[in-house]
């Protein structure tokens, strides 16, 4: 898993470049190509050294950085000179395309940041599931699929449900999280069984519909069976399972 630590810190070569520009306090409109290329390459070397899987995009970017750098070292020929509408000479900067791309990317990176804030803000609001209005409805309408819904409406509904469902979980989790240990649950089950002095339906031990609770109860039962503290009975296949104590067993964990 170690090699998976990952370039996750960066969303790609553009992101890495923006980071370097920021860290080196470089003007994005006047990037010192030699410096940034060196930094970029050293970063890639480090990643390789750490046996990180350097995605091909990073290498492609490295190549184009080197290309820009070398272009800038070559002196201009007369025929390459460029003039704007007013006939004033200007230089085409080999960095232009890169800068443009970086600025474009940065715009969306900022927008992503804004979305993140909206996401957080939205998560502070809770909605309620639609009420079951069955009692108000007349008989099911038999009109055939002219439903006017798409697959995405269905997926959207599912997402809404999942978001909402997180809330509907009863409180038991929080309470049990504070560790109803298996040992404790074993004690509870024993106390329970001793109190009724008879057998109890297996399923009645699982009253709290919380998965953690279910797992703990189940493990507690297994443990009690292993310790010969309780018996499980089933009269036939698929019949109800009963749990019963031996008579006069000592309380688990009391010694």
């Amino acid at each position, binding site marked *: 898993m170690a090699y998976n630590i990952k370039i996750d810190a960066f969303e790609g070569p553009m992101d890495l470049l923006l980071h370097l520009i920021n860290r080196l306090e470089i003007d994005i409109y006047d990037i010192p190509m030699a410096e940034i290329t060196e930094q970029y390459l050293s970063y890639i070397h480090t990643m390789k050294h750490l046996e990180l899987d350097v995605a091909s995009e990073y290498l492609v970017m490295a190549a184009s950085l080197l290309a820009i750098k070398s272009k800038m070292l070559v002196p201009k020929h007369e025929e390459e000179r460029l003039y704007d509408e007013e006939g004033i000479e200007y230089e085409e900067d080999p960095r232009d395309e890169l800068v443009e791309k970086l600025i474009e990317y940065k715009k969306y990176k900022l927008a992503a940041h804004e979305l993140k804030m909206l996401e957080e803000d939205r998560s502070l609001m809770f909605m309620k599931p639609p*009420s079951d209005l069955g009692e108000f409805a*007349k008989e099911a*309408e038999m009109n055939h*699929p002219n439903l006017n819904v798409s697959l995405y409406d269905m997926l959207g509904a*599912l997402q*809404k449900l*999942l978001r909402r469902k997180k809330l*509907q979980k009863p409180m038991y989790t929080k*309470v049990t999280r504070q560790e109803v240990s298996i040992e404790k649950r074993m004690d509870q089950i024993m106390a329970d069984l001793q109190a009724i002095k008879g057998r109890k339906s297996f399923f009645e031990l699982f009253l709290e519909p919380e998965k953690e609770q279910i797992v703990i109860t189940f493990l507690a039962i297994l443990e009690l069976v292993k310790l010969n503290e309780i018996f499980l009975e089933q009269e036939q296949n*698929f019949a109800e399972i009963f749990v019963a104590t031996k008579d006069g067993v000592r309380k688990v964990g009391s010694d």
Partner: protein
Amino acid sequence: MEVINWKGIVEALLFAAGDEGLSLKQLTSVLEMAELQTKEVLQDLKEYYEENESGLQLVEIADVYQLATKKEHSDYIKKLVESSGSGGLSQASLETLAIIAYKQPITRTEIEEIRGVKTDRPLQTLISKALVKEIGRAEGAGRAYLFGTTKEFLDYFGLKTLKELPALGASTEENFEQGEADLFFEKFQETLE
């Protein structure tokens, strides 16, 4: 000193809990106050609804509190149901359809476990619209009906096979599947240690 708006907090809690409501115990534990105090806040909220022009009321059934609409507005709610009955599928129906599509074959009880609410109506709607049908019976005592999607479902959403349904992302899957197996495994490991 800042005054805490307990009434508002309880209203928000009950609202978010929806039709399931919250027990006095749950409320007390969230608010971290004595049961008696919680009861007082609930009483406040109840009176607030009665005195004001609110459309809601506080209902208590066996120590479980839930919000509900006032009876006197039921005519309008009825109208709402009737007017929305014609076109489109309700949120409830769409949710149910999604669950069936991804988890078929599935029983009604299982759907209700995922949704956390009764699902007779939406299921009925989906069957009447031929998007869903009974495709068998579950094993075990109840022999409950198993539901699945129909050919019309595929046609309607322009799918050739069920495999063309968009894959659910890992995180969605996780929520959906409850991750029971993992938890189980984790706990087992703990006991082994």
